[in-house]
């Protein structure tokens, strides 16, 4: 699935919130970085998308 299509959908629905492109964090051996992100934003709605980058 094209990330472009999903990003267009997100941009249209969330509105522009421009910022520098976020750095990639690697999930090389565990999901701990994702878990930490999830916990860091507790109290807010969150979305996780699994997509191919192409």
């Amino acid at each position: 699935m094209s990330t472009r299509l999903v990003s267009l959908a997100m941009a249209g629905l969330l509105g522009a919130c421009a910022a520098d492109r976020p750095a990639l964090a690697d999930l090389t051996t565990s999901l701990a970085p994702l878990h930490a992100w999830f916990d860091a934003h507790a109290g807010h709605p969150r979305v996780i998308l699994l997509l191919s980058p192409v």
Partner: protein
Amino acid sequence: MVYVPMVPGDDRAAAAAAPGWSDARASCFWDGERLTGRTWGAAQREQVLPKLLPLLPAGSPEHEQLASWDPDMQPLWDVGWFFAADARWPADGLPPAAAWCKQFAYSGGETGANGFFRGEGETVEVAWSSWHEQFAAGMATILGR
């Protein structure tokens, strides 16, 4: 956003250059080993697959493909989960999602041309839809709109 290598050309450089994620609210991860798709796929196969199989015609190629799905060999992807503010990360598997969608058929991204499984609460269904519609529905669920 979790990027996983699933099609030719998918690599970390492609993930770093993926369009559209210059948003202060987005965090991006590269899952080169498809840990997410394998780990959460196993949980979804156990929890969700029994609800999805009756939605597809018995004996159809789609039914057979889904019934024989091995998340370790075919990691989960093209999927979105929408979590309420009070969702907590569990000891195992995926946090409980208020809504989710999984694309299973792609035909150009146009509205109505792409097949999705979608779930909300205990309800699961097949929706011929688009990512725009699915994302809107998921966001509406977690924002209470």
